[in-house]
């Protein structure tokens, strides 16, 4: 099950917070959490919906009351493709696999699938989310998450 995380904003972590110090449900904060090796989403306090990508208004019930939760990093591959003609910054990796993963908690996220032979890709493959350590020097200064076969 997803667990709640204290919404705090320690000085100097770079999280964007509201006036009470709660970490706002923003895209950038999601990637800041990735820098801490945490895969986060938000849960609507009103209807319980799990929202990914994180956002501040629940599209299911329109509540503005959402809280961060940490997802376990396991799930299954729903669909995938092998990119042979990538945008320029990914050319060194081509051909590479990307796919959409459904987390055990339910939310679905897209990402690159690494550490796998392309011929071993198949729908239903057990995956886990991992995090890059490198952070780009220019905007957006976020570490990426990626998928790999579950250990």
């Amino acid at each position: 099950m997803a667990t709640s995380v204290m919404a705090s904003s320690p000085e100097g972590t770079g999280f964007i917070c509201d006036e009470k110090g709660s970490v706002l449900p923003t895209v950038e904060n999601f990637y800041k959490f990735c820098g801490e090796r945490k895969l986060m989403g938000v849960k609507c306090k009103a209807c319980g919906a799990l929202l990914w990508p994180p956002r501040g208004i629940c599209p299911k019930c329109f509540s503005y009351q959402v809280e961060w939760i940490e997802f376990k990093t396991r799930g299954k591959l729903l669909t995938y493709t092998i990119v042979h003609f990538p945008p320029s910054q990914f050319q060194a990796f081509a051909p590479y696999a990307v796919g959409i993963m459904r987390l055990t908690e339910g939310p679905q996220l897209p990402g690159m699938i690494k550490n796998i032979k392309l011929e071993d890709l198949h729908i239903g493959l057990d995956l886990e989310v991992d995090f890059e350590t490198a952070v780009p020097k220019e905007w957006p200064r976020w570490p990426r998450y990626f998928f790999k076969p579950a250990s």
Partner: protein
Amino acid sequence: MTQPLASIVSAGVSKFGVREGLYGRELFAEAAREAFDSCPNLEPKRDIQALFVGMMSDSYEHQAHVAPLFLDWIGLLPKPAFRTEAACASSSVAMRTALFAIASGMCDVVLVGGVEKMTHVSTTGVTEILAMASDFPFEQWHGISFPGIFGMMAVDHMNRYGTTEEQMAKVAVKNHEHGVLNPKAHFQKRITVSDVLTSRPVAWPLKLYDCCPRSDGASCLVLTSPKIARKFTDTPVNIIGSGHAQDTLSLCERENFSTMKVTKLAAQQAYEMAKVGPKDIDVAELHDCFTIAEIIAYEDLGFCPQGKGGELIDEGATYLGGRIPSNTSGGLKAKGHPVGATGTAQACEIYLQLTNQAGRRQVAGAEIGLTENVGGSASTGVVHIYQRGD
């Protein structure tokens, strides 16, 4: 029959393809001149009250603020001009905006069109610009290209319904066959299933010939309120249904990657408004940016049951001469896909078909036509239904 939303009284399309040495504004003027010249009763400066123009990206020509620019190049300053952006559905959304203007009574004659000038930019550059229509932090940031998004839809469709690469290839073969009959098409050459299957992989299972080209081109229509259409022509085409819906920008959030919810919703609105159903459609222009997208469109528009799109192309139903000829223009695949121009170019093809001006690709006796245009990974969907007005 319900009162039409608007009438098309003239249409113009530039030659699509590699239009070296021409700017987008010049391509738009080429399309507009054809629309003006083929409607002798129209005095553009006197009659046209507003311009609605779709264009996807400022990046190709380093040019924003294109509405006044295109208006200027067709001699219509200082009329109000509006530019819409909805990725590959930019000019269909312009058309929706134009319909709002006419339905509100604020305008009774408007020009609506679309433009894109792409081929001077490298394939890699175009790939990056098109990818901007996907979600930056969650799709582009992870190396997911646009062919990649449709590749993921294709894998899902193959897994769910048994659709094959051969069936997808047949869509490309058909649209090239039709393109041969359209002198304005980007490509006018036949291809075979084997050509498609052996072409270079782009985003598996999509190969090069499953993908539409990058093209230069422009298109436009003169729309009027139905009550004055006959001042301009004896053969107006009425827009009798219009639907438009949106979905998440990211593909990942959808429940089912094998269907385009926006197309279903837009089609439902348009069919209900027009009081017609899929069986009444004589000719259709569909959004075949990738071959899988046309197969999905068959299903979402109700041309066949869900999951049977592959069988519909196997039967030959969507060829000229078939039960529901689709993409007689050559579609995005062979006519070309200058992104912003595509929506209104689809409407131009239906206008030609319903006024018996489609030449060698004419669908005999066509009375009712449909266009289906999607933006991005089907985050925007627009469907229009047309009927002969003579």
